[in-house]
């Protein structure tokens, strides 16, 4: 099986550039403006966390990069360039080649994300046969090798197992094997540890980190857990209601948060040194994204630093070195 030359240049700098991306969803109850001029960049080998509350648009962003959003989603502006490839303008056939091969994703709830009536080894082999340089005879062996790479015990026997025979942690390892089968340049992990117990969470995250480092793979980790993000990621991008409010290297973000929302999130995150009583909650809730009259900065309603300038378009971006920035009229 011949390998189609890739349309994605892994050496591109940056590997992924999302610029001013705006997406809306048409639903029965109105149009949801899910993303508003979202920008972020990711370099080869970099680990970035996309952090925010449920409903802040993290998954929508990830799915947009892969081009797997629901058909009800419409891109109303902006661009996504992955390794030189314009994802939004690319033909479906090109995207099919890229998916699974240059960029891969692992989902939360891994058991539901695997085909329940197909042995896991075959599912890995399917991907290898689709994208990889393997023959039908070699595929099963390579699948077993992948299972060994993600440290599933007794991989040869396990390759014939069905998802319902595996634990949640093992299912997630299988998902990682599926994603990494063709050694993509970018791995997107959408809440990979939700639903797993604490020890398994750590093991899975360690595995991802190790494999990413080994293959010089960029990782985009989507999570609502700031603590998890701080442990595994170089850079953190904080999202609120479809907008990126701050991006900064991890240490600096925690040391010197520049956006009021970031500061609140950090204060609400339990760590080894915080006590339960000192944990603050973030007041208010996400605005209704179906409204026509959303202010330019969607955090306005919950912010104590709010004034009239915050409703003006657009929200001022203050850019610092190495891609860090904050979108706020009154940064800390």
């Amino acid at each position, binding site marked *: 099986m011949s390998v189609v030359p890739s349309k994605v240049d892994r050496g591109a700098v940056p590997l992924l550039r999302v610029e001013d991306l705006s997406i809306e969803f048409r639903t029965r109850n109105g149009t949801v403006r899910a993303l508003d001029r979202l920008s972020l960049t990711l370099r080869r080998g970099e680990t970035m966390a996309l952090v925010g509350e449920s409903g802040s648009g993290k998954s929508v962003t990830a799915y947009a990069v892969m081009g797997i959003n629901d058909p009800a989603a419409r891109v109303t502006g902006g661009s996504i360039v992955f390794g030189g490839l314009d994802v939004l303008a690319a033909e479906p056939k090109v*995207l099919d*080649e*890229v998916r*699974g091969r240059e960029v891969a994703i692992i*989902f939360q709830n891994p058991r539901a994300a695997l085909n329940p009536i197909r042995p896991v080894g075959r599912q890995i082999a*399917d991907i290898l046969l689709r*994208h990889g340089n393997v023959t039908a005879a070699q595929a099963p062996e390579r699948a077993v090798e992948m299972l060994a790479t993600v440290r599933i015990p007794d991989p040869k026997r396990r390759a014939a197992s069905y998802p319902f025979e595996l634990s949640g942690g093992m299912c997630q390892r299988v998902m990682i094997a599926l994603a990494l089968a063709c050694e993509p340049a970018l791995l997107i992990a959408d809440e990979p540890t939700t639903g797993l117990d604490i020890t398994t969470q750590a093991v899975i995250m360690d595995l991802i980190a190790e494999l990413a480092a080994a293959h010089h793979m960029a990782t985009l980790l989507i999570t609502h857990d700031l603590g998890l993000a701080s442990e595994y990621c170089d850079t953190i991008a904080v999202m609120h209601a479809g907008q990126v409010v701050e991006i900064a290297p991890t240490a600096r973000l925690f040391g010197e948060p520049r956006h009021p929302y970031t500061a609140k999130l950090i204060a609400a995150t339990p760590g080894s040194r915080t006590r339960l009583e000192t944990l603050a909650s973030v007041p208010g809730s996400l605005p209704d994204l179906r409204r026509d009259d959303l202010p330019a900065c969607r955090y306005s309603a919950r912010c104590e630093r709010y004034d009239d300038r915050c409703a003006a378009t657009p929200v001022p971006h203050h850019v610092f070195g190495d891609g860090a920035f904050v979108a706020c009229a009154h940064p800390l």
Partner: protein
Amino acid sequence: MPALIVLRRLASALPSIAGVIVVTFLLTRALPGDPAVYFAGPAASQEAIEQIRHKLGLDRSLPVQFVDYVRSLAHGDLGNSLSTGQPVSQELLTRLPASAELTFLALILSVGIAVPLGIAAATRPGSWVDHACRIITTAGVSLPVFFTGLLLVYVLYYLLGWAPAPLGRLDTFSSPPNFHTGLFLLDSLIDGDFATFRAALAQIALPAFTMAVFSLAPLARVTRASMLAALGSDFVRTAKANGLARRRVVYVYAFRNAVLPVITTLGMVFSFLLGANVLVEKVFAWPGIGSYAIEALIASDYAPVQGFVLTMAMLYVMLNLAIDLIYGLVDPRVRITA
């Protein structure tokens, strides 16, 4: 392990079989008035009636009668037909292949149309195929099968002359093929007798199609619904996210999962089909067990009717068992945990 699954399923069918036997027994005793009079026939003398009463054991107590009934069943004795004097079981056996051929051809046609239609409707939501599927599904369950049959006869035979006269399994010029299975289509193919094959096919086309139209609706509905569910599932999202080819996603990932509820629905579909069989056999003068029962009904000949009900019920239990087994073998979640 499969052997164990088979045995366990067989065991679970036993209560149904028992229930069927009890109910059919009760039905033979529920005849209005004196059952002996009915089994002896309208022309019987008082003496003949008493003879029948004694012969059929109707003068004994109910539990004893039941034991006798079960014993006769075990010997394949379903009583004798009043009008022909022949044993009912023999007549049923002779006519069974006709009904079986019709029903199975109808099922194959039905599945052959409904499943692709359901898949197409699910993979092209909002298209004309999707709308056609919805209309067929809703309208299909409303069609009285005997009326559809008559309409088809009127249009395709009387008006257009495309179909042959609804006179049974073969037209007047053809003779039945040599007996191998009793299914004319198969038997004529086995003999390489294409003329008879064509004649048999021409005769069975319309009745089979009538029955197929009837069972099309529930099958198409279930296929479409379960394909939609499968296509929207998390694991299909994973498959798409990994760039798998569309054919593989639709057929290997989505369809193989979607087919499971369809198999389960086949049980209900068979219930419809076996009932529709009777009506279609009347419309098309098809010499199967359905028309046998209808003729017996008109003649107030009760033994054949009860034999027919029992046979149909047993067939149905066996069919459901087969469906259960197939499902158990196809779905690894059942196969492995069993």
